[in-house]
C-alpha cells in the first residue's frame, strides 16, 4: 500500500467515525437510541440487513472458501429465501404489534420472565463469542497489510469499533450501512473486472470455467443424501433454512434492523430484498474466489498465502526446509502450468483426445502442487504448534495487494474495513440493547428514567466490545473464518429458534415446559457436537426439533399454562 491507499483508508475511516458521531449528536430517548426514529424505508432496511450479515468475514474469507472448495458453499444459503418468507409472514407482524425493543421481549409476553432471560442469554453467549471472531477478521488483514502485530491490531481496531458503536444509535448504523454496502459492491465489482483482465491472453471465460470445472471448483450443487458432507442441497435447504430462520428471525442484530422500519410493509420488503439477492451475492463472491484459483494456475502464487507467517518462519529456521519446499513448489507449479496451456491449446484446436490427456496430466501435476502446499503447511504448523493455519483466509487479500493498482487497493481495503465496522456496530448495538432491555431494565433496575437506560445501553455496548476483543485475542481458530461463525451460530441458533417456534405455533405449551425443553435441547446439541461428525448445519434442525418435541412432551405432564398466546397473524 502506498500513500494514496493509506489516505483513502484512513480518510474513510475517520469520515465514517465522524459521521456516526454527527448522527448521534443531541439527546435521544431509549426508543430513539435502540430502534431509531422509525422512519427507515425498505431499501435502507434491505441494505442494512445485508450489510449486517455480509461483514468483513464475508468479504475476506468467502473468496478463500471458493478458492479452496469451489462453489459448494453457496448451498449454505439455499434456506435463506424460504426462511425470510416465513419471517416476513409470521415474525414481523408479531414483533411490530407488540412494539418490542428486542426479540426476547416477545418470549416474555408469550411465556414468562425466565424463558425471556434464557433466550436473551443464549443470544448474548453466542453473539458475544461471534463478535470476537468478526473483530479477528479485519485484524488479519491489517496485520498482513501493515506488518503490525496481530494482537495489537485486534485491540486497536476493536477499540475503534467500540468507540463508533457507543456513539452510534440504530439510525446511524442503518444509514451508515447503506453507503458502506455501496462501497463494498463497488470494490468487489472492480476486483472482479481486474481479475478478468489479468487472466492469460487467449484464455476465454469459457476456458476459465472449464479449468475451474476440471479441478471440481464448479460443483455448486450436490444432491447426495449423505449427512457427512458439509454442504449439500438438503443440508442447505433444511439446515440452512433453520439457520437463517434463527439468524434473521431471532438474532437481535438483525431484528433490530427491520424493526427500525416505518411500517410492516417496509420491514417485509427489506427482508424480501435479501431473499432475492442473498444467493446471487454469495455466488458472486465465491465465483471471485474460483476465478482467483484459475488465475493462480497460470501465475505462480505464494506457496503459503500468509506471507507474514511464512517470512517469520523462514527467518527463524536454519535447516533450509522451507526454501526447499518453495523451490519444489515453483517446479511443480511450472509443470502444471505447462499442462494447462497444452489443455487450453487442445481445446481451441478441437483435439478431444489431446484435451483429455492434457487435462489428466494437469490434474496429476496439480496433486503434486497440493502435496507441496500441504507439506509447507505441516512444516509451518510443526514450527508454530500454538497457531492453526487458515491460509485460505489470506488468498483474496494477497490477490488484492499483488494484482490491483494503487488506489483500488486502498478502496478495497477500505470497503473491507467499512464492512467490518458496520456489521460490528450492529452486533455490539444489539448486544448492548439486549443486556439493557432484557436483563438490566427487566431484572436489575426497573423503573429508572429513559436517560439512565440510554447511558446503561452505551456502557453495556462498550463492555461487550471489550469481551469481543478479549475473545479475539485468545481465540485459536481452527476453521475458515466464515465457517467458524456459522458453526458457532448453528450450535445455539437451533434451540433459540425452537423457543420462538413453540411460542408461535404451539399455543398450549407454557413457559416452564418451553424453558426446560430449551435447556435439555441445548445440552443435547452440545453432546452431539462433541461426538458426531455431521454437517454443522444439521444442528440447527436438531436443536429446533428437540426443543419443540421436548416442550410438547413436558407440557403433557405439567399443569396447563394460563398465559395468553399472541397469534402469528390475524
Amino acid at each position, binding site marked *: 500500500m502506498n500513500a494514496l491507499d493509506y489516505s483513502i483508508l484512513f480518510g474513510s475511516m475517520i469520515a465514517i467515525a465522524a459521521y456516526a458521531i454527527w448522527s448521534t449528536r443531541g439527546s435521544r430517548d431509549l426508543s430513539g437510541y435502540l430502534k431509531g426514529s422509525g422512519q427507515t424505508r425498505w431499501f435502507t432496511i434491505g441494505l442494512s440487513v445485508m450489510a449486517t450479515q455480509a461483514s468483513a468475514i464475508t468479504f475476506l474469507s468467502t473468496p478463500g472458501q471458493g478458492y479452496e472448495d469451489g462453489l459448494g458453499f453457496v448451498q449454505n444459503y439455499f434456506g435463506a429465501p424460504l426462511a425470510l418468507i416465513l419471517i416476513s409472514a409470521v415474525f414481523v*407482524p408479531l414483533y411490530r404489534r407488540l412494539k418490542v425493543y428486542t426479540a426476547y421481549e416477545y418470549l416474555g409476553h408469550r411465556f414468562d420472565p425466565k424463558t425471556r432471560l434464557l433466550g436473551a442469554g443464549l443470544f448474548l453467549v453466542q453473539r458475544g463469542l461471534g463478535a470476537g471472531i468478526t473483530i479477528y477478521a479485519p485484524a488479519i488483514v491489517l496485520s498482513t497489510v501493515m506488518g503490525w502485530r496481530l494482537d495489537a491490531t485486534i485491540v486497536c481496531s476493536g477499540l475503534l469499533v467500540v468507540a463508533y458503536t457507543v456513539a452510534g444509535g440504530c439510525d446511524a448504523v442503518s444509514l451508515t450501512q447503506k453507503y458502506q454496502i455501496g462501497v463494498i459492491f463497488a470494490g468487489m465489482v472492480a476486483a472482479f473486472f481486474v481479475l478478468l483482465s489479468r487472466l492469460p491472453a487467449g484464455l476465454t471465460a469459457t476456458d476459465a470455467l*472449464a479449468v475451474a470445472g476440471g479441478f471440481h471448483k464448479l460443483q455448486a*450443487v450436490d444432491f447426495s443424501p449423505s449427512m457427512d458432507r458439509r454442504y449439500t442441497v438438503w443440508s442447505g435447504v433444511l439446515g440452512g433454512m433453520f439457520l437463517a430462520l434463527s439468524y434473521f428471525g431471532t438474532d437481535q442484530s438483525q431484528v433490530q434492523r427491520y424493526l427500525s422500519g416505518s411500517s410492516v410493509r417496509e420491514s417485509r420488503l427489506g427482508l424480501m430484498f435479501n431473499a432475492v439477492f442473498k444467493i446471487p451475492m454469495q455466488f458472486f463472491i465465491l465465483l471471485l474466489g474460483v476465478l482467483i484459483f484459475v488465475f493462480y494456475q497460470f501465475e505462480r502464487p505464494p506457496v503459503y498465502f500468509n506471507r507474514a507467517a511464512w517470512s517469520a518462519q523462514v527467518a527463524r529456521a536454519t535447516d533450509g526446509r522451507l526454501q526447499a519446499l518453495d523451490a519444489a513448489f515453483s517446479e511443480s507449479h511450472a509443470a502444471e502450468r505447462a499442462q494447462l496451456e497444452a489443455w487450453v491449446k487442445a481445446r481451441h484446436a478441437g483435439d478431444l483426445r489431446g484435451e483429455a490427456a492434457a487435462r489428466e496430466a494437469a490434474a496429476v501435476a496439480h496433486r503434486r502442487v497440493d502435496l507441496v502446499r500441504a507439506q509447507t503447511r505441516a512444516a509451518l504448523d510443526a514450527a508454530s504448534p500454538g497457531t492453526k493455519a487458515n491460509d485460505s483466509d489470506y488468498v483474496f487479500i494477497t490477490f488484492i495487494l499483488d494484482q490491483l493498482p494503487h488506489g483500488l487497493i486502498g478502496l478495497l481495503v477500505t470497503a473491507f474495513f467499512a464492512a467490518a465496522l458496520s456489521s460490528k456496530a450492529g452486533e455490539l448495538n444489539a448486544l448492548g440493547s439486549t443486556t439493557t432491555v432484557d436483563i438490566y431494565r427487566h431484572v436489575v433496575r426497573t423503573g429508572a428514567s429513559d436517560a439512565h437506560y440510554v447511558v446503561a445501553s452505551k456502557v453495556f455496548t462498550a463492555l461487550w466490545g471489550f469481551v469481543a476483543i478479549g475473545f479475539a485475542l485468545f481465540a485459536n481458530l481452527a476453521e475458515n473464518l466464515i465457517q467458524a461463525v456459522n458453526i458457532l451460530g448453528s450450535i445455539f441458533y437451533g434451540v433459540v429458534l425452537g423457543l420462538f417456534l413453540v411460542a408461535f405455533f404451539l399455543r398450549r405449551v407454557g413457559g416452564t415446559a418451553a424453558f426446560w425443553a430449551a435447556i435439555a435441547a441445548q445440552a443435547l446439541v452440545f453432546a452431539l457436537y462433541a461426538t458426531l461428525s455431521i454437517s454443522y448445519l444439521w444442528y440447527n434442525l436438531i436443536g429446533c426439533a428437540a426443543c419443540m418435541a421436548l416442550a410438547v412432551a413436558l407440557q403433557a405432564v405439567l399443569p396447563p399454562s394460563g398465559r395468553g398466546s399472541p397469534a402469528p397473524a390475524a
Partner: protein
Amino acid sequence: MRVPSDDDSTGLPWPRSWRGVYGVVLGVFLAWVVLLSLLTRLFP
C-alpha cells in the same frame, strides 16, 4: 390492534399481494437452483 395479514397490499405496482411477492421470491430461488445445477453439469 389488528395484525397486518398476507392480504394487505404491498404498495407495489406488481405483485400487489404478499402471496404474490412470496411466489416471485420462490420462483427466483428455484431459477437459481436450476442455473447452479446446469453449471455443475456443464463443468463437471
